[in-house]
């Protein structure tokens, strides 16, 4: 997997378009256990990223990821802004010293670590980390598999489903206590949408 400007452009465009298309679903999920703004917030953030797509993809890869992160921080509006923003900014930092594809798990792990630090959250608290940690594990342990992309896609889907029985202990949903059980976590779902968009794009280019 190389990451030429054109590939980066198609990845970012697909991820943004899929999140924007999922906004009604994310909003519905967030209305069940949050404050109902996740869809609109993610849509606003990724529309801003799409608006900068041409300039983003002329930057060096590390700067491109940092620009995406800063754009999300400045435009999303909810807690998802700093969380996703920190992910992309940390990935940008990691790309200064690490290389794709060999260091993919390390680079992704830097992003996941930044989300965990920003949210002061761990696995099992019914958040986006409950998708990001399992996907990181797949990237680490199954890197050599020819069907890695398919494995990442499946891991993300399974991880979203596993948030349903979880009780939220972080984020707005934690106010609901036991009533947060029985619902998909909106942040886990938006992470899955982004990851699936990346998987789809990479598979289409193979």
């Amino acid at each position, binding site marked *: 997997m190389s990451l030429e400007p054109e590939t980066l452009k198609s990845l970012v465009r697909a991820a943004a378009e899929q999140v924007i298309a999922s906004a009604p679903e994310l909003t519905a999920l967030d209305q069940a256990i949050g*404050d109902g*703004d996740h869809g*609109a*917030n993610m849509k*606003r953030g990724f529309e801003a990223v799409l608006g900068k797509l041409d300039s983003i993809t002329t930057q060096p890869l590390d700067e491109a990821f940092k620009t995406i992160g*800063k754009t999300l*921080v*400045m*435009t999303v*509006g*909810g*807690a998802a*802004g*700093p*969380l996703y*923003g*920190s992910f992309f900014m940390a990935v940008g930092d990691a790309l200064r010293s690490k290389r794709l594809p060999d260091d993919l798990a390390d680079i992704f792990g830097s992003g996941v670590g930044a989300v965990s630090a*920003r*949210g002061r959250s761990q696995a099992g608290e019914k958040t986006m980390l409950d998708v990001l940690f399992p996907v990181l594990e797949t990237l680490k342990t199954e890197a050599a598999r020819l069907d890695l992309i398919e494995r990442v896609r499946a891991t993300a889907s399974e991880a979203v489903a596993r948030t349903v029985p979880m009780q939220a202990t972080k*984020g*707005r949903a934690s106010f609901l206590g036991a009533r947060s059980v029985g619902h998909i976590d909106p942040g886990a779902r938006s992470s899955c949408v982004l990851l699936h968009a990346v998987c789809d794009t990479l598979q289409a280019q193979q």
Partner: protein
Amino acid sequence: MNDMVGIVIVSHSKDIAKGTADMVRQMVGSEVKLAFCGGDPDGGLGTNVSLIIDAINNAWSPKGVAVLVDLGGAETNSEMAVEMLQPERRNLVIVCNAPIVEGAVMAATEAAGGSSLDQVRAVAEELSAS
């Protein structure tokens, strides 16, 4: 010598942020350095990192700035805003773990007396311990 810690109020609602600032002004006076913001980038309920950065810079004092927030996203976005300040300012801003209205009034009262940033924070955060 006469510097006071600045106070920043960050709510999801611009009305709450403004109302809290009005209470601080009335109860503590106009000499405290005070800035507030609320609302997401489209003007709906939420918080906005760039407005928070502006508010911190507007309330800036060499003694530092105490930030009072309401719900989770305001805290996360405020912490993000602090990290995006000029490097020499980052260590002089504290996001307090305190209720927004009472915290802002108590912090501003303490700040008006010329206390340090740590003292201002301690007074605001006592409110959460009880």
